[in-house]
């Protein structure tokens, strides 16, 4: 039985939080991918033994505080998107990488929609169209995140055997 990679799990999430917060020039700030949901989706798919649902709640709350949005907004979207990925894991796990890239697209759409919807309920009007750009960039970054984290996991497993 392989050990559960708890340390890698939490470190990867904090790296994602860092990437989410690091300052970007204004021109590309709108295109920043949704790093936290990306990394959460990877762990939900690849390693069901880590507490990914709880982590998505905690990191969602952190995002809420750091972005000063309504408390629970990012948490709700993170938990829901993670839950969907865990539920459909049996399906996703059979796909090759490029198919899973496309198959995860609805998850990012749901995430972006929840952001948009809760902002609407909280009377925070924002630009409607630019809001959906991260869906595309997140989709493009999925293969990268997957390959990097997967290679780490594989190396770890090899060293344990």
């Amino acid at each position, binding site marked *: 039985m392989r050990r559960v990679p708890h340390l890698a799990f939490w470190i990867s999430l904090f790296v994602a939080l860092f990437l989410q917060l690091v300052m970007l020039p204004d021109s590309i700030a709108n295109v920043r991918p949704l790093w936290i949901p990306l990394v959460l989706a990877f762990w939900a798919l690849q390693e069901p033994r880590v507490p990914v649902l709880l982590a998505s709640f905690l990191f969602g709350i952190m995002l809420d505080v750091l972005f000063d949005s309504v408390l629970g907004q990012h948490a*709700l979207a993170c938990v829901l998107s993670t839950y969907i990925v865990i539920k459909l894991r049996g399906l996703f796990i059979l796909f090759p990488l490029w198919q899973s890239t496309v198959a995860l697209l609805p998850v990012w759409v749901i995430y972006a929609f929840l952001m948009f919807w809760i902002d609407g309920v909280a009377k925070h009007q924002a630009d409607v169209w630019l809001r959906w750009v991260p869906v595309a960039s997140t989709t493009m970054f999925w293969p990268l995140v997957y390959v990097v984290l997967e290679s780490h996991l594989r190396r770890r497993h090899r060293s344990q055997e």
Partner: protein
Amino acid sequence: MNTLSVDHRDPLFPRGPGLGLRAVALLAICGALIYFDFRTPKLEGVRQTLSWALSPVLWVAALPQAFGDASDYLTSRDQLAEENHQLRDRQLQLEAKLQKFEALEAENRRIRELLASSKNLNESVLIAEIIAANQDPYRHQITLNKGARDRVYRGQALLDATGVMGQIVQVNPTTAVALLITDPDHGIPVEINRTGLQTIALGVGDGQALRLPFLPGNADIRQGDLLVSSALGGRFPAGYPVAQVYEIKHNPGEHFAEALAYPTAKLNQGRQALLVWSEDHSNDDESLVTLPDATAAPAPVPAPAVVPTKDANPAASAAPTAPVRKP
């Protein structure tokens, strides 16, 4: 991707509540949080504690930028940089004082006609460094390195050398968060400098423009008009430049004309901002307030234009009948 091994499967006899139940419980917590945070201010304390606890994360996220600054610092001589810094602060303060004159000139002309007494425009300022900007492109907020310890208060106005930047929305012990005037949640009372017409400027949310949605159809407003802050509402000190009109739209069938304006403050450039203490907050501490001479002032003073905010001392609205604190 299909590297699913045996031990990756769910255990045969899972312990604890099931996945669906856990997800529903967490979603319910999130829903309750959203409801309470939106409806009541009860969660403000929780948010402040969390934001204090997460300040190391912000610090780490600001490191790449800090490294860029550090290399810049090492190449120049320390003393020179220090002196430069002080001079720049000084210049910022002077520029902020200077920018009032354009507005004062127009105001003076109008007030002369009305023969009203002019109000004291002496405000104290403090320079704050901008230490972070909210990285959500739809929330225009910045974090400053001055907080409750420097007597920063909620609702305090924030300026830079060229105009009004925004106002403080959250005060932590050593930092404060300011909402910029371009945020879609922000509205600022303004007056058109040329005519004195009062209106409200709302943020558009694209980070660049302000919107004046409530102009009467026949309002005298032109391209290039300067909008200055008005003291209505009591949040902002009057007379600082806010924005310059660049487009006026008359929508057929609408009751109101709409104008668009660019803020004069450089909102996403620069490192410093000025915090302004207007008169009615300057006596929150024990400093003595100079009140006008009761014999020289006209007997019935009209209600002051500045509405005192809730934590302001009523004596600050400078009514001659108000008790004067002894030194």
